[in-house]
């Protein structure tokens, strides 16, 4: 049973301030990141819900923009990371890339679900409906289903190699899917507004403090995403370790059985 340390770069210990390994997925790095996150997210909450002005047309509801749009960005980022990591895994076949792909995909699923929820609630006061079958919502729902399919493939009872290969192929499809989602508002006439920030000429149509809050929301969101991804990756790695341990234990038990029932040849005490 090969351990990961045999063919990988130096491994980092989980140490608390006292220098002893802790029973968590944390480490000095994530602790620092986590501590930084508190004021960052507090400032985001202040700016989004108190500091920034209400919109002329949408009123207070525009504040949901600072929740909805960053979450969409996080969802896309997560899916891209998962797709790229899957691609690299198909090439390099190291456990690291496989786990990155799986972790990012799971976080992506949570983010897409959140996008659909916030978008739906945002849609009620602005468009009058919770849901409509326009291009962007439909393709986002499709992305959600695709991600659920990916998670289902990850759960199949098979070796890590088989599981990795099959889920990687599913993940590669995230990329064209996201492109379709983002561009769907321009390709088909749609209820959803045109992409504000990601059009290629990058001329934003909102301004001042609202614009700053929006961009700041991206930064805060990405920081949170990075922190969460690191933790989720480690959990995935620990899960693989525990599974391997379970396998070792089962093999040991099996070997023990061989001694007891007298079927072994040569040398076994009867």
């Amino acid at each position, binding site marked *: 049973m090969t351990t990961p340390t045999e063919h990988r770069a130096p491994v980092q210990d989980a140490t608390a301030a006292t220098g002893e390994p802790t029973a*968590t997925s944390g480490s000095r790095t994530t602790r620092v990141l986590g501590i930084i996150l508190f004021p960052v997210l507090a400032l985001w909450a202040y700016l989004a819900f108190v500091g920034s002005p209400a919109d002329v047309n949408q009123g207070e509801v525009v504040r*949901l923009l600072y929740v909805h749009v960053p979450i969409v960005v996080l969802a896309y980022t997560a899916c891209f990371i998962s797709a790229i990591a899957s691609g690299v895994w198909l090439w390099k076949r190291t456990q690291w890339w496989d786990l990155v792909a799986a972790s990012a995909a799971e976080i992506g699923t949570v983010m897409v679900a959140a996008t659909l929820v916030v978008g739906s609630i945002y849609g009620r006061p602005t468009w009058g409906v919770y849901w409509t079958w326009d291009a962007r919502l439909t393709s986002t729902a499709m992305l959600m289903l695709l991600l659920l399919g990916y998670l289902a493939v990850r759960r199949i009872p098979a070796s890590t190699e088989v599981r990795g290969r099959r889920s990687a192929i599913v993940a590669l499809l995230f990329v064209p899917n996201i492109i379709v989602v983002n561009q769907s508002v321009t390709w088909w006439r749609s209820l959803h507004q045109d992409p504000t920030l990601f059009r290629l000429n990058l001329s934003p149509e909102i301004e001042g403090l609202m614009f700053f809050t929006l961009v700041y929301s991206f930064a805060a969101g990405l920081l949170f995403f990075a922190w969460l991804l690191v933790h989720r990756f480690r959990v995935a790695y620990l899960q693989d370790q525990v599974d391997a341990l379970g396998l070792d234990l089962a093999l040991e038990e099996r070997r023990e059985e061989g001694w007891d029932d007298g079927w072994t040849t040569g040398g076994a005490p009867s």
Partner: protein
Amino acid sequence: MSIVLATVSVVLAQIGSSSTQWPYVGAGAGLVLVGIALYTVLVLRKGRQLARQLKPEDRRWMS
């Protein structure tokens, strides 16, 4: 799970009939932020649970 869904639908029904805007902001932001926070807590707890099952030298990960 059904309790969560029931709560969500009650919340949505309430805000659906509201005339001011803050309930929308509250529900939208609240539901989602609570949801993401829940997921985060689940991840961290799973990490703890798994790490406890391993001997200390196995509790590592690639950097």
